[in-house]
């Protein structure tokens, strides 16, 4: 009986106290005809030694690759301290900090996280995190609609992560909100503010602005933000947190700054892990604070006047407001945020900036090397951050396969998401790549290209 500590004597004494003959008796309120039999498809239990062997075999089957795929999930160095501290039992195995006095560790950490994220995004306040970047954007759209009151339209450029757009659509369409996708300039890879007028004719609640966008291209965020505001709509930034160490934060875009900033927190110390768990971040202006979904931590005092931290603004939440809540969300991604907070503390402003710089410089170096190969060209003319789209004169699939056989994942075939972008490769080389790695990639690529 793995993980069950009861001895025979314990069981007998407990049944005796209850006054029940057997454990089965305790299920006597379940109608007999509903009782199920054996769980035939569940295999017999393994010892920890056996499952360790199995999991190691499966992990070795998958192996380790040199990864040059970005596309919304980025490989960065994660300091050893991050997960050694995060997986301490007191963080790992605690629940939502409902009993504040017995949860100051988690609560203070979340307050620190909110402070860091608000500053990184240049916004007034941050919540304590969302499920992931995609759902954070969906929640931002809902928030914008709640705030706008008259329009149920959201403008989203096609330069936003394609899956984010799907997720937003899946979630907000339940509430009869329209998603209007905006085209991008196929030359610069950006949404051109000049091209937006036709979409602004009708009222809209918000314009989503990615920075960088899915192609790694930097958008004209100031003009886009000001345009949205000129139409009485909110500006929602979708940003990469590593980039924010380097780039103007959403709170400073245009004349008044974006109203909501969201994004995928994964680059901040979260391993790639086949896609999750990650966390979404969400920050906004003070004026929107009562519309924000998810958990929020506030600073307060105890009976003796000492500083402490509690869950606050719970009146927005489902466990109080039920059907009138701002969202049905009842968790944050606590453990991921624990890791991210420790990551940001270990890196500091200068460290995170260097990570951003080297990720960018490495990608530029890789792109320059690849561009030298005849038949390889940059697709977009817009400035980029740490990711670039390359047009190949040959089929991408075959080249990806060849490099895969050399244990290199060479990038993403953009056509999977953009049918018009034929034979286009999206590549990213973060700070984890050495000059030798980049050289090896370029050489293998050239060979594969021949």
């Amino acid at each position, binding site marked *: *009986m*793995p*993980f069950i500590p009861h001895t025979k004597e314990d069981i007998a004494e*407990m049944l005796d*106290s209850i006054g029940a003959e057997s454990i089965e008796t305790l299920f006597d309120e*379940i*109608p007999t005809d509903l009782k199920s039999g054996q*769980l035939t498809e569940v*295999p017999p239990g393994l010892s*920890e030694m056996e499952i360790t062997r199995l999991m*190691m075999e499966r992990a070795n*089957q*998958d192996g*380790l690759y040199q990864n040059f*795929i970005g596309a919304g999930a980025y490989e960065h160095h994660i300091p050893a*301290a991050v997960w050694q*501290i995060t997986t301490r039992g*007191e963080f*790992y*195995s*605690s629940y939502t900090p409902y009993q504040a*006095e017995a*949860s*100051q560790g988690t609560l203070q*950490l979340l307050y*620190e996280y*909110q*402070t860091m994220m608000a500053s990184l995004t240049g916004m007034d306040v941050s919540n304590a995190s969302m499920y992931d970047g995609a*759902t954070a954007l969906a929640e931002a759209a809902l928030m914008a609609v709640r705030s706008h009151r008259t329009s149920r339209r959201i403008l989203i450029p096609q330069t936003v992560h394609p899956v984010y757009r*799907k997720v937003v659509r899946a979630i907000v369409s339940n509430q009869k909100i329209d998603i209007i996708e905006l085209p991008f300039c196929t030359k610069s890879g950006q949404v051109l503010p000049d091209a937006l007028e036709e979409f602004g004719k009708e009222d809209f609640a918000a314009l989503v602005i990615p920075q960088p966008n899915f192609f790694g291209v930097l958008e004209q965020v*100031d003009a886009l933000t000001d345009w949205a505001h000129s139409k009485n709509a909110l500006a929602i930034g979708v940003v990469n947190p590593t980039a*924010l*160490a*380097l780039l103007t934060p959403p709170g400073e875009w245009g004349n008044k700054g974006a109203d909501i900033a969201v994004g995928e927190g994964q680059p901040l110390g979260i391993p790639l892990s*086949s*896609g*999750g*768990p990650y966390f979404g971040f969400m920050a906004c202006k003070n004026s929107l604070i009562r519309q924000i979904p998810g958990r*929020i931590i*506030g600073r307060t005092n105890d009976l*003796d006047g000492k500083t402490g*931290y509690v869950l*606050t603004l719970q009146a927005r939440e*489902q466990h109080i407001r*039920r*059907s009138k*809540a701002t969202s049905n969300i*009842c968790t944050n*991604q*606590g*453990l*991921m945020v624990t890791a991210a907070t420790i990551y940001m*503390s*270990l890196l*500091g*402003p200068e460290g*995170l900036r*260097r990570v951003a710089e*080297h990720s960018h410089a490495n990608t530029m170096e890789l792109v320059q090397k690849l561009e030298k190969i005849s038949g390889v060209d940059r697709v977009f003319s817009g400035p980029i951050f740490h990711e670039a789209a390359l047009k190949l004169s040959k089929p991408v699939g075959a080249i990806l396969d060849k490099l*895969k056989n050399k244990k290199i994942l060479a990038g993403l075939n953009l056509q999977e998401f953009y049918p018009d972008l034929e034979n286009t490769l999206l590549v990213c080389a973060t700070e984890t790549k050495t000059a030798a790695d980049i050289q090896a990639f370029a050489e293998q690529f050239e060979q594969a290209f021949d």
Partner: protein
Amino acid sequence: MLIFEHARPGRRNYSQAPTTTASVDGIPDHLLRKKQPLLPEVSEMDTVRHYTRLSQKNFSIDTEFYPLGSCTMKYNPRACNSLAMLPQNLARHPLAPEDTGQGFLACMYDLQEILKNITGMAGVSLTPMAGAQGELIGVMMIRAYHESRGDFARTEIIVPDAAHGTNPATAVMCGFKVVEIATDKEGNVDLDALKAAVGPQTAGLMLTNPSTLGVFEENVTEMSRVVHQAGGLLYYDGANLNAVLGKVKPGDMGFDVIHINLHKTFSTPHGGGGPGSAPVGVAKRLLPFLPVPFVTQEDGKYRWVNEKERPQSIGRLSAHMGNAGVLLRAYIYVRLLGKDGMHRIAEFATLNANYLMAELKKAGFEIAYPTRRASHEFIVTLKDIKDKTGITAMNLAKRLLDKGFHAPTTYFPILVPECLLIEPAETESKQTLDAFVAAMKEILTEIKEQPDMVKNAPHTMPLRKLDDVKAARELDLCWKPDA
């Protein structure tokens, strides 16, 4: 002291960043940040020391008994963590080709199959990232089902008044109107009220069973019949699956869709409030609507099924495939348990709950539904005590902290006044339960003899009782250097 207060301008942690700066040529100057963000300027040791100390201020399963009702705080085996964090598992990019992840996909496929079997459902998708998202996805499928049949009239979701707040909130997020129905004296859903509530406008019923009152819904078969007859579907909130795992399958009770909180029944870590993971299972008629991606197997090869193959799918609800790392932990847990271990979860969770209920009753506490079996949880009400002494459920909860026990859930379910919802989970020993009963008895005595000791609790925590009202009124959500 906040991490920011350990900082000094210019202090750096040299080992954790590239040793040099690098050029950002190509990025126009006007797009560059002018002022550095407020991240702490501290050393590695500062960070390790600060967060290690902070961690010690938390109660957790690894340090305390945590009988938090409706949360299923069971032991989180350490191997689940270390194996989920094998380097290959951590390094795999979500967009890496499927043939570089056959080992990982095999785990996901196996998990889907096991979840199907234990719930009695026809299909499972692992994508939901939390219980509330599982609910949303489930209700979206109900909506998609009706609409696929051209039935746009079903605008209502029925929810018992005892339900978790997520149920009505989810229904609203999904564009439905919520119809609440009452609970009867014995803790069952009022069947007559249900019968009166259903109709052609009924999209479905969301039900937690055993309910949040800690009792098995005895009329579930009849309820299922009533809702189905009205053309509605049945949603099973898996929050309390722990109590009946291997005893009864939601599919056999007539449920059409279910979510399973892996962070409860399958012991993935709560992590101070997430990440969760809540796979959804569906009956055959809802199969076309399952969210993508999920894993299929052909000739020993695993691959993702996407929207191209499932045009009726409600689509994608996360940027990738859900919380892979949580799913791996659950898979490892399930394999450690095996078939026999799986059956024993509900048995011993129920044994522990009923024993604790019996002992607390003997100790003089009032049980909210004394004639019923406890499922894996039960409710104590302090209404009488409050009326007589002014001591509230919250006072008792705080006093328990002083005695080294996390408090049970308080003031939920809302319909029982001054209540404590107590769930001991199967991984706790009789000794621990006995120690908890002893502490509860001590508090009963204190209520009589030293009521102020209880009213002013806690006394031994890092802080005394915190002022929630001030927190909400004088919002302070971010530290300011000059404040």
